[in-house]
């Protein structure tokens, strides 16, 4: 088949990101030609400020080098500006006469800096700040001149001023409004910022309107004169007063434009053959000047160019971060407040900290942070997700406590950490490694950092820190993961929620059926989506859907936990933590007979036999099975342990028989698969010796019955279980516990522990289903019991079936 022709005009950040996304989806569909006015391959425009400040070189900020275009078969005309677009002939023409015809055209022409329309604005020494050529001109000027004036105290102006000051110039920032960054900060935060910039040597003239620029010696700019009559000397004037979408070409071809080129939710212009992305675009009346929204546009646009037709761009909430080393400012959303909003403010000017949170209808609508921006990424997610925050309102200001002290680095903020600080304890990744990867590979998302550095890809406890490093390295361009809508993995665009819903509504019963019905992009999925799909199938359609062993992680396929040397561990179940001399003898015999190298008490109060080769597992299990021992599921996303204390059976304080209750619960839940592992504990009185306060379900005996707690977690990030309700009888403990766990099994996303599930849906929702609605509770409980019916011990099955899984083949 002959390839279709795609031409892109504008070789910048939004355009190239679209091509990258397109390459992932349909690498063979088009023959691609790119025109770029700048004589460079695509570079990271937002890192021009570090180049100006002398913290990076141009070569450090190239995102797609020449080889990238070559390797993807893309023809790049760098340094050729397109001057004509002929929509009838479907052709573009560059300044030097180079032509290219298209089946699809992608306009990504970015924006142009606005020049003040005042006399003298074209004098030598007057520069805008947009590209590498401007940056180099400023660096050159700083070498031979002393006095610089930056007109515009917004993000760009301040970064320019700071860079020039670092290059040794005397810099004055002239700003029309009464405080700097008035579009991103309120006055209090701006004043704090101004003070710290003044400490770094910058001067400010606020509320000043420039009237004209006057020439000095050699015809170069020499003086900036204001409307109020005053004037200051200037040998370099940088205009940073804003940008306007670059729509010249589109307009000349008669394409519908307002402020920007008008596009719909698929990034298509009024000419169906022409798409547009980036700063040149106007979508639902909004134009953008930060990369995060442009990347979202790129993703959707690529999908439509690839003719998949999935996904719509519906607009973005943006956040801002100033990239001036040593100063932390963050703002997002409706930070100004106003009618219908409430504000929570923390102000400690002496310590240089100011934080303002703006709430609207129990939701976070905006935030301004100065001095301590560690929680910025978290607030930004709350704003984007529109999550109901009334339950956490009183500690909202103090951030998610895991963010500050995530990882193993204490509560220091990522930006202040030295490059040698270890961020990811699991993979031994240092801050410097992460920053380097972000800069050299042009990374913008947590996923990308995970892929390149492995940081945060194992236990995830350092995720908060990695996000902070991302945010402080790439500024506002950082794209927090959209927790709600995130696709399951690269094999699909669909989220966990959407997949679950489809499995239920279309009654899908096998993994191939799901992949076919939902248009999976890969033939067999991957190690991320297959286990999730398998779980969704068996939990939605118990006894009907196929359980596919090849889609389970090795531990669940082999029913034992793999160790670093490839051997396995065996943990027999000890119901409620109870055991007998006969069981202990059987375990001791097995340990001797099979020369088990390590025998250990687990943190779950049972015995672990570690270091058993796979081939020997069935024999070990057969021996244990004869003594009545069954699988402890210490390897699965499943019920794990029910810890108990001695309780009323023996303890002088016990109010309820916690051991008996624990055994009942564990027997009821035997063989229960779940989105993640599930741990319970039962204590006989509020002294709580079984540590029920950090379990997925914690049961605490009191004189009149039991208190039930849910969604605790003792792992990566300790979460205290929340009070669900009080019940009277053992039977009720089973029913409420079962109903809660079934709700989690039906609505939790794969690898979401109960604490994350409840944080997502809200404890009120859980109570409404499990506590307040008796009919719903009973139905949930019955569905759980139905799913668990007839479950057979997997160890006994493996022994009985002589499963070949455990047998090695041999050749001589």
């Amino acid at each position: 088949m002959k390839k279709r022709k795609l031409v892109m005009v504008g070789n910048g950040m939004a355009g190239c990101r679209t091509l990258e996304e397109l390459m992932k989806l349909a690498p063979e569909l088009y023959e691609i030609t790119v025109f770029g006015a700048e004589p460079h391959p695509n570079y990271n425009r937002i890192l021009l400020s570090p180049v100006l400040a002398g913290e990076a070189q141009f070569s450090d900020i190239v995102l797609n080098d020449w080889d990238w275009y070559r390797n993807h078969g893309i023809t790049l005309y760098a340094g050729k500006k397109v001057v004509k677009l002929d929509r009838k002939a479907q052709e573009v023409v560059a300044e030097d006469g180079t032509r290219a015809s298209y089946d699809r055209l992608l306009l990504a022409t970015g924006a142009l800096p606005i020049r003040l329309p005042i006399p003298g604005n074209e004098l030598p020494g007057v520069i805008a700040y947009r590209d590498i050529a401007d940056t180099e001109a400023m660096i050159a000027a700083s070498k031979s001149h002393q006095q610089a004036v930056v007109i515009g105290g917004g993000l760009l102006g301040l970064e320019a001023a700071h860079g020039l000051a670092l290059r040794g110039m005397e810099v004055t920032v002239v700003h029309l409004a009464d405080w700097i960054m008035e579009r991103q900060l309120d006055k209090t935060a701006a004043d704090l910022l101004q003070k710290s910039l003044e400490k770094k040597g910058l001067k400010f003239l606020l509320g000043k309107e420039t009237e004209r620029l006057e020439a000095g010696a050699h015809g170069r700019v020499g003086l900036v004169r204001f409307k109020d009559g005053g004037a200051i000397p200037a040998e370099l004037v940088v205009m940073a007063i804003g940008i306007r979408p670059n729509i010249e070409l589109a307009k000349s071809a008669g394409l519908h434009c307002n402020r920007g080129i008008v596009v719909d939710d698929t990034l298509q212009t009024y000419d169906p053959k022409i798409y547009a992305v980036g700063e040149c675009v106007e979508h639902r009346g909004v134009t953008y000047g930060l990369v995060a929204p442009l990347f979202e546009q790129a993703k959707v646009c690529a999908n439509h160019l690839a003719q998949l037709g999935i996904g719509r761009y519906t607009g973005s909430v943006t956040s801002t971060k100033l990239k001036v080393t040593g100063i932390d400012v963050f703002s997002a959303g409706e930070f100004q407040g106003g009618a219908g909003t409430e504000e929570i403010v923390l102000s400690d000017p002496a310590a240089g900290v100011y934080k303002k949170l703006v709430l609207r209808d129990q939701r976070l609508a905006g935030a301004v942070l100065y001095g301590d921006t560690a929680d910025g990424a978290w607030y930004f997610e709350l704003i984007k997700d529109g999550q109901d925050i009334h339950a956490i309102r009183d500690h909202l200001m103090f951030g998610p406590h895991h963010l500050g002290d995530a990882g193993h680095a204490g509560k220091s903020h990522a930006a202040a950490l030295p490059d040698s600080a270890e961020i990811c304890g699991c993979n031994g990744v240092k801050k410097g490694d992460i920053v380097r990867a972000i800069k050299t590979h042009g990374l913008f998302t947590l996923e990308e950092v995970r892929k390149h550095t492995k940081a945060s890809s194992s236990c995830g406890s350092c995720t908060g820190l990695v996000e902070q490093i991302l945010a402080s390295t790439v500024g506002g361009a950082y794209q927090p993961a959209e927790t709600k809508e995130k696709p399951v993995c690269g094999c699909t665009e669909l989220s966990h929620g959407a997949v679950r819903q489809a499995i239920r509504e279309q009654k899908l019963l096998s993994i191939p059926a799901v992949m076919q019905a939902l248009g999976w992009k890969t033939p067999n999925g991957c190690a991320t989506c297959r286990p999730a799909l398998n779980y969704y199938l068996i939990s939605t359609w118990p006894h009907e859907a196929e359980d596919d062993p090849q889609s389970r992680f090795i531990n669940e396929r082999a029913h034992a936990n793999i160790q670093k040397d490839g051997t396995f561990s065996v943990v027999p179940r000890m119901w409620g933590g109870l055991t007998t001399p006969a069981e202990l003898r059987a375990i001791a015999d097995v340990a001797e007979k099979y020369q088990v190298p390590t025998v250990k008490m687990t943190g779950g109060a049972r015995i672990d036999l570690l270091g058993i080769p796979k081939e020997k597992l069935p024999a070990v299990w057969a021996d244990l099975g004869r003594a009545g021992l069954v699988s402890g599921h210490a390897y699965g996303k499943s019920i794990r342990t029910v810890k108990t204390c001695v309780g009323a059976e023996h303890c002088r304080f016990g109010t309820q028989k916690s051991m008996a209750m624990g055994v009942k619960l564990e027997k009821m839940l035997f063989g229960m698969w779940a989105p993640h592992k599930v741990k319970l504990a039962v204590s006989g009185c509020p002294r709580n010796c079984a540590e029920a306060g950090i379990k997925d379900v914690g049961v605490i005996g009191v004189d009149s019955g039991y208190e039930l707690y849910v969604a605790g977690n003792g792992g990566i990030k300790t979460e205290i279980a929340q009070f669900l309700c009080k019940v009277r009888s053992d039977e009720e403990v089973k029913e409420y516990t079962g109903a809660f766990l079934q709700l989690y099994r039906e609505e939790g996303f794969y690898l979401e522990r109960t604490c994350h599930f409840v944080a997502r849906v809200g404890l009120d929702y859980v109570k409404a289903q499990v506590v307040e609605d008796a009919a719903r509770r009973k139905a949930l409980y019955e569905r759980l019991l139905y799913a668990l019916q007839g479950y057979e011990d997997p160890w006994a099955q493996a022994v009985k079936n002589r499963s070949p899984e455990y047998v090695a083949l041999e050749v001589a």
Partner: protein
Amino acid sequence: MSEWKAVCALEEIPRLGSRVVKTPQGEIALFRTAEDEVFALRDKCPHKGGPLSQGLVAGKVVTCPLHAWKIQFENGEAVAPDKGCAKPYPTKVEGGRVWIAI
């Protein structure tokens, strides 16, 4: 010099699954794809020696069970950005039997 050796029937390897083969050259992982192609790799992940035979198979790639590196069947190379190689061995399927050259 390598030599062709018969190992097992194709059916003895689960689809999208694998088996371990003990050989004089050490353990080799045999994989079977959804299309019934068979591939063989040294059963040691280039990362930290994880047993690739215990991984999850998708397409022509296995995900190592220990730290989730992805290793490609055709050349044994890790999928970028990871770098490393597990030695691939030639295989063939004839008359329903799987052969491996070692």
